[in-house]
């Protein structure tokens, strides 16, 4: 469907509720072969055929990279989201045939690190499930700090504690337990790398404190898939393919371009990988940039847009697609 994203034909081998909000999905190859190898932090894009509509959502692989008989993802149900997680929860059953992308890793471990300090918030725990499994198998030095709203919403906290004991520290919001971030960051041995995955507020807080406390940018890694935000519908002219399209309220610009039969390259669909970067030919209106890829200067220049997460408000927009 898109350049750079080879597809895998899989069957849903199991569906397991983890708690009231999170369900785990297991995939195996339909031809019975092993799945491609991946490294901790990798994600796959899951294709969801929802009637007329195809949804493509990225999810981190949470199984051990040492076991490629199956891939596992965990999906947190978002009742006010765009519907991808609800589709997974309500429609996906064991035995169902699905298509997923090859794994891509935009949040990999830096294996030169002397120590890996991991900070997870909520469902942001999933890439760390794979990374801790990978490191534990290599005798790697890691420490995981995991914040969740309540013990019952601390997805896989029990599994992690059992596997790694005191290398895992839990914080429950309802018990007023908070990460003592400054003390934690300032007590790490030289050569430590920091990894954070969770809500954007948490990522911003951790990155800001790390920078202020003298952590070089090369040692701070974060992953935030911005889910495309809904917004007012807008019209776009695709200059190369000569098409006029309308982006609906609940649709992303990338999805609208794809629905018109044009296939831009993509990998993450979350504003971080840079693959779908698109040139603006002309515009009369205002860009709503939601990506983490373009620089602030590029955002201000109005010459580029990341159609996976960003939108437009105004009279006309012409893109080089």
């Amino acid at each position: 469907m898109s350049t750079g994203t080879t597809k895998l034909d899989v069957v849903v081998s199991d569906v397991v509720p983890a708690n009231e909000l999170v369900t785990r999905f297991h995939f195996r190859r339909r031809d019975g072969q092993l799945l491609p190898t991946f490294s901790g932090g990798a994600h796959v894009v899951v294709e969801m055929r929802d009637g007329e509509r195809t949804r493509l959502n990225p999810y981190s692989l949470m199984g051990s990279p040492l076991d490629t008989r199956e891939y596992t993802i965990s999906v947190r149900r978002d009742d006010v989201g765009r519907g991808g997680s609800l589709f997974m929860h309500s429609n996906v059953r064991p035995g169902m045939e699905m298509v997923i992308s090859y794994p891509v890793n935009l949040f990999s471990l830096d294996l030169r690190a002397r120590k890996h300090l991991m900070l997870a918030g909520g469902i942001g725990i999933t890439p760390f499930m794979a990374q801790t499994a990978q490191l534990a198998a290599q005798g790697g030095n890691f420490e995981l700090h995991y914040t969740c709203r309540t013990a019952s919403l601390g997805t896989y906290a029990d599994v992690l504690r059992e596997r790694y004991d005191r290398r895992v520290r839990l914080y429950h919001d309802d018990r007023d337990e908070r990460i003592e971030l400054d003390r934690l960051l300032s007590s790490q041995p030289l050569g430590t790398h920091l990894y954070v995955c969770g809500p954007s507020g948490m990522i911003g807080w951790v990155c800001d404190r790390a920078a202020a406390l003298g952590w070089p940018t090369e040692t701070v890694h974060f992953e935030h898939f911005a889910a495309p935000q809904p917004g007012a519908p807008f019209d776009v002219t695709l200059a190369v393919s000569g098409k006029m399209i309308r982006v609906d309220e609940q649709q992303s610009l990338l999805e609208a371009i794809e629905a018109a039969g044009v296939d831009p390259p993509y990998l993450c669909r979350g504003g971080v990988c840079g693959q779908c970067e698109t040139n603006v030919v002309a515009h009369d209106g205002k860009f709503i940039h939601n990506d983490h890829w373009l620089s602030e200067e590029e955002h201000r220049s109005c010459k580029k847009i990341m159609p996976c997460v960003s939108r437009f408000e105004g009279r006309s927009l012409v893109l080089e697609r």
Partner: protein
Amino acid sequence: MAAKSIISRPVYGTLSPQPGKHHLFVADAEGALAISDLAAKAPSGFFADAHIIFIPGHDGKHVAALEALKPAQFYQGPTFASALPRLKQTLANAHMGLRLYLAGTEGLIGQAMQVALEAGIDHTSIQTEHRGSLARRIQCVHCKGITENVTTQPATCSHCGLLLLVRDHYSRRLAAFQGVCINAEDRSEIPPTEEIFR
């Protein structure tokens, strides 16, 4: 300032104060001037968390200027080798939040960086500024011996005596430029020697 040639040839910047909890400086000779220039741009109290390891040049200058910055710790030694145990110990006990600044000759910057890499600091996280001599530390690719303070092209290996072409090819792991026999085909062919790394 060293010119950029091939990708492995190190390039140096200008020291600037970084956010951090501790600041470790390693400098030799005129590298002290780079620290003084940084001090002019640094916020007040910056040197209260600083440690300076300084190897003065033959003229013995700049010690007073560095002491006047009132760093928390100041060490002065005759050679890099004499400062090495202190540097290693400091890095071994350090936490994230320590920032490293290297200034002076290429040999000093390279050797201090080699120790820092072993301690787990990424080379891109280190502030460097080249001041003073362009003399090179080279490794003979034939006998693997290191020759310090090479100023000529070609140069004689102080270990095996081969006449070496001093290349821009640099190893961070060895903290040395590569020296390759310049007259392997005919050892009687002796190209003229120029002093180009002053």
